[in-house]
C-alpha cells in the first residue's frame, strides 16, 4: 500500500500547480538522549566475528553531525553467559568486537553502561533463507521503460516471518530499504524488487536481505514513516526500540539491538 500512497502523492503533484520548496522552520531542541545503534548482522558464508556498535546522542535537527558517546562499557552475552566485549576504537563512539559468535535462534543480551546508567536489551538472532533466483525485466512506468531486478527466496511457511531488504547501487546516496512480512505471503516464494529510472546496463546492484524479529519490523516501519513523511503518512511519533534503562526508566535510550542473518548478493544489469 505504500506504493499506493506514493502514487497518490505523484497524482497530487501532477494535477496541481503544486511545488515543493525548502523553507526555514525554527525548531526547539530537546535535551540530548543516548542513541544505541546495535545492528549485528551475520552475512552467510562468513564467521560473523567482526561486529560494530555505535553510541551517540540526539542533536539539533539541523546539525550536520550527531555527537558520539565515548567511554561507555559495551558487551553482549549469549544465553550460556559467554560475553563478547566491544571496545571503543580510534573513531569516537564506535565500539568493535572481533570474537563474536553468531548462532541462529540464540538469545543475546546487550549491556551498556554509560554515565552511571545501565541499559540492556535482549533479542534473538533471526535466520534468513537463501536467495533462490535473481531475474531482470522491464516495467513500463509513467510512460518510461524502467529496468527491474527481482530477487526471490522461499518463506518457510511455519510462522510469521519478517525481513529487511537494503538495496544499493553506485548512484544511490543511501540504500533503498524495503520491509517485508509474510502475512499475505505465508510459505510462498517471496519477491523483492528494485527498479529505478536511472538504472542502466552495467550497473552493479547489491541486495542485502536479513531476517528480523516482529518487534524490529514494527520499529523499522515507524522509522520509515517518520523519514518518508508526505501527506499520506501517519502522524509522527517517537519511536521506542527494545532498550531499557535499568537505572532510571524515564531516561530511556533510543535505538535498537537486533541480530540478523543476512544474505548478500550482487547483480550486474544486463
Amino acid at each position, binding site marked *: 500500500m505504500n506504493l499506493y500512497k506514493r*502514487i497518490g502523492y505523484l497524482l497530487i503533484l501532477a494535477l496541481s500547480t503544486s511545488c515543493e520548496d525548502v523553507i526555514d522552520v525554527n525548531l526547539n531542541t530537546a535535551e540530548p538522549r543516548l542513541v544505541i545503534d546495535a545492528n549485528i548482522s551475520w552475512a552467510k558464508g562468513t564467521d560473523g566475528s567482526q561486529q560494530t556498535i555505535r553510541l551517540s546522542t540526539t542533536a539539533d*535537527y*539541523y546539525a550536520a553531525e550527531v555527537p558520539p558517546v565515548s567511554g561507555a562499557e559495551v558487551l553482549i552475552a549469549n544465553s550460556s553467559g559467554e560475553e563478547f566485549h566491544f571496545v571503543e576504537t580510534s573513531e569516537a563512539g564506535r565500539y568493535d568486537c572481533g570474537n563474536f559468535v553468531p548462532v541462529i535462534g540464540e538469545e543475546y543480551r546487550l549491556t551498556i553502561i554509560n554515565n552511571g546508567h545501565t541499559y540492556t536489551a535482549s533479542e534473538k538472532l533471526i535466520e534468513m533463507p537463501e536467495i533462490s533466483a535473481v531475474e531482470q525485466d522491464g516495467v513500463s512506468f509513467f510512460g518510461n521503460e524502467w529496468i527491474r531486478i527481482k530477487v526471490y527466496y522461499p518463506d518457510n511457511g511455519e510462522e510469521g516471518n519478517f525481513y529487511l531488504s537494503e538495496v544499493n547501487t553506485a548512484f544511490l546516496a543511501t540504500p533503498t530499504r524495503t520491509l517485508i512480512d509474510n502475512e499475505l505471503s505465508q510459505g510462498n516464494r517471496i519477491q523483492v524488487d528494485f527498479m529505478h529510472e536511472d538504472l542502466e546496463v552495467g550497473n552493479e546492484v547489491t541486495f542485502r536481505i536479513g531476517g528480523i524479529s516482529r*518487534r524490529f519490523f514494527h520499529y523499522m516501519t515507524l522509522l520509515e514513516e517518520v523519514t518518508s513523511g508526505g501527506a499520506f503518512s501517519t502522524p509522527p511519533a517517537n519511536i521506542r526500540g527494545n532498550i531499557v534503562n535499568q537505572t532510571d526508566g524515564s531516561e530511556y535510550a533510543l535505538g535498537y539491538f537486533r541480530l540478523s542473518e543476512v544474505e548478500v548478493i550482487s547483480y550486474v544489469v544486463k
Partner: protein
Amino acid sequence: MKPSFFAAFFILMISKAFSQGISVDLKNPTLRDVFQQVENQSNYKFAYDDGLPLSNSVGTDLNIKNAAIDEVIATLNEKLPYNFVPKGKNIAVLLKTEPFQKPKDSQASSYTYSGVVLDEANEPLMGATIYIRERQTGAVTDENGAFSITLSRGAHTARISHIGFSDREITLNLTGDVHETYVLDADGEVLDEVLVTSIKNSAEIKNPQMSMNRLSVAEIKRMPAALGEPDPLKSILQLPGVTNAGEASSGFNVRGGAADQNLILLDGVPILGDSHLFGFFSIFNADALSGLELYKGGIPAGYGGRVSSVLDVHQKTGDDRDFYINGDIGLISSRLMAEGPLKKDQSSFMLAGRSSYAHLFLKLTENLRDNVAYFYDFNAKLSHRLGPNDNLYFSGYHGRDVFNIGGEFASRYGNSVANLRWQHRFSDKLISNLSAMYSMYLFELDLNIVDFGWENSVTNYGLKYDFNHYFSDDFILNYGAQAVFYDFNPGTLTAKGENSSFNSTQLDRKYAMEPAIYIDAEHKFSERFSVRYGARYSLFYRIGSEEIKQYEGDRAVVFNPDFQLYEGATPTGSVHYGSGKTISSFGNIEPRMGISYAFNEDMSVKASYNRMAQYIHLLANTQSPIPINLWTPSGPFIDPQQLDQIALGYFMNFKGGDFSLETEVFHKTVQNRIDYIDGANLIANNAIEQVILNGEARAHGLEVLLKKNTGRLTGWVAYTLSRAEQRTPGRTPEETGIANGEWYRSPYDKLHDISVTGGYQLDSRWTLGANFAFQTGRPVTFPDGQYEFGGIKIPNYGSRNDSRLPAYHHLDLSATYVPKSKKEKKLQGEWVFSLYNVYGRNNAASINFRTNEETGINEAVRLSIFGIVPGISYNFKF
C-alpha cells in the same frame, strides 16, 4: 425618476390644493400608493423600517373622503395589518405583534388548509410563507414544500410568497378541508444564476432549528472554485464551523469533528466516500443538485448514525412540463444534464452525467498513451405521480475514479447509490414517505507489477418509513422507523498469476444491523416561544457469521511496560458465531431539543442539545485521507461513539432582513473516539482490534455569521474561534496512553477561521464573485532533534500536534458573463472565468522533515498544492 411619477405627483399636488381634508380612493393599492397619497395631502410623513413591503398590495380597497388625519389613521389601523401610531408629524408604521385571538366558535367549524408550493421546475419550495391576512397567522413550507394551517369556516385571503418569486394571492372560501398545489413564478425573466442574488437568506428568527446552513446550487456555482469546477463540498468550507485538512483533501470537519463523523445524504441515502481524485473534487455534480443543508448541531431526531453533522444533499427533480438541457464545458470536466416530462404533469426525469478528461497526467510525462486518470458520475431522478395522494420517486447515483498507470498500477473506486421512495398522503394532516435504499462503496486496486489484486467494499441496504403529522399550526409531529443492514468486506486479496508471492486471501467479512425509531415534535407555544423536541432510539447488532478472536482479559491491545509502547495481543482462541447470530449489541437513547425565543420579528435567542450515536467507524490514520475508505462496525472490541452537544445562539435580522447576524457558541464531547497505536497498519489487517484504542474528543467554539442578503452585493463574513482536542488515556495507571494520555489538539483544530464570500451583480451581463479564507495553520508535530540509526538520519519528535503549519489563506475571484441572448434563440449561454489563489500564496499542505539526498543535511520542505490557478468554463441551457 420615471415621467409617470412626475405626473402622479403633479396631479396629487393639484388635488391637495383644492381640498381641505384627505381623500384616498384606491383599489387594492400598495402601501407605497397609500403613503404617497396621505403624505401629499397632509404634512404628515410615514416612518417605517426598510423591511416594510412597500410594493405589496394591501389586499383591500380604501375609500376615505375628505377626512382628518386621525380619521385616516383610524381607518388604516382598521383595514391594514399594521399599527399606525402618530408621533408629532410622523406616523410610525409598526407590525402588529400582539398574538392572534382565536374566534370563539373556532372549534366548532375549523378546517385544514394544506398544500404544496413548487417552483416553475416543480421543485418543492422550502421556506415559502403562507400568510392568512384575516388571521394574521401563517405557515412556512417544509423541505417537501408542504404546509398545513387550521382555519375557521369562511373567507380568507392567503398570500404565498418566497423571496425571488412573485407573490400569489388566493381567496379561499372554506367549507371543508382543502389541499392545493401552488406553482410560484420566478421574479423576473433573467437566468436563474442572476436571480439568486435577490434571494433573501435572512436568518430564521422563530424556527427553533439552529446551527443549520443552507446553500442553493446557484450560490455554489457563483463561488470561485479551484480549476473552475463548482463543488458543493468545497463550498460549505466557507461556512462558519466547517474546515478540512487542506487544499485537495477529501472530507470536511464540522465543529472540530472528524471527517467520518459527517452523515452525508444524497436524497436521503448515506454516502460512504465523498471525493474524486484523492480529494480534489467531491462526488457531487452541481448541475444535478438543487441544494443542500448542513446541520452542525441541534440535529433533528429524524437523522442519526453519525455524531458530528448531517449534510443533506438534494438532487433536482425533473421539470414535468418542458424539456431542458444544461451543459457545462470546463477545464477539468464536462457535464450534461437533461430534464423533462415522461408524461406531462405526471412523471418527469432528470439525468446528469459528468466526466473528467482522461489525460490529467500532463505534467508527468510526454508519453500519455499508457496512463489514465479520470472520474465520471451519473445522477438520475425520476418522479411519478400515481394519484392525487401518491408520488413515487427514484434517485440514483453511480460514480467511479479510474487510474491506470502503464497497466502496472490500476485502481477503480466509487459509490453506487439508489433510493426508491413512495410518498403517500393519508390526509391533509398526515403524509408518509416509505424508502428503500441501497448504497455501496467499492475500492479496487491491481498492482500487476507485483501480481497483486485487492478489493474492499461496504454495502448498505436500508428501509425507512417516515411520517409528517400536522396536528395544528402550532404542533407538528414527525416520526418514523428505519433499519440498515451492513455488509463489510474489509479486503479480498487476489494473487495474480502463478508467480505471485501473495496468497489469495479473504479477510473476515463483517455484518451488522442498525434499526432506529424516532419521534420529533415541532411545537409552537406562542408567537415568541417555539420548541422542537424529540428522541431517537438506535440499536446496533453485530451479527455473524464471523470468527471472533478471544484475548486474555478481552484486551486485544497490550501495553509493554519495558519499552513503554502498545502492541497487539496474541489471541488465546476464537469463537465462531453462525450466520445471523448476534455477536454484540448496543442501544442508545438520543434526546434532541431546540428552543427559540423571539424578542420580536427580528431578534431571537436559541438553544439546543443533541445526543448522537455512531456505530460505524472509518479506519484511517494517514494525515490526508486515502480513497480506500475502510469502514468497520462497532463490536466486541470497538464501542459506539457517543456525542453530546449544546449550543446557544443569538439571531438577528436588521435593515428589514437585508442583513442578518447569526452568532452561536457550542460545546461538544465525544466518547469512544477511535485512536490508533503508533505505526498501526490498517490495510489488509484481519485483526484490526489489535491496533485500536478507545479515546475521547471534545470541541468548543464561537461562530459568527454576518450576511448581506439583498441588493447588488450579497454575501457573508463568517468567523469561527474554536478548539478541538482529543485524548486517549492509559487504561491502567501504568499505561501511557497516546501522547502520554494528555489532551492534544486534533489534526483539524483551527483556532481562527475567517471566510468571506461575496457576489456582486455588476449589470445584466456581468456577475462578480469573490472568496477569501484565512485559517490558523493545521496542528502538526515538528521534530525537536535528530539521531542516527543504521546510517539513517531520523527526526525525533516532540509533543504531538504542538506546532502549527503557517497560516493558510487565499483569495479567489470569479466573473460570470451572460452574453445578451436573442429572444428568438432558445440557447442561453454563460461564461465563468475564475482565478484561484489570486496573490499566489504558497499555502503549506504539509511540511516534511527530511535529509537532502545530495548534501546529507536535514531540511524542512514545504509542499504547496495550488499556486495561482485560472479556470474557465462555458455553461449552456436550452
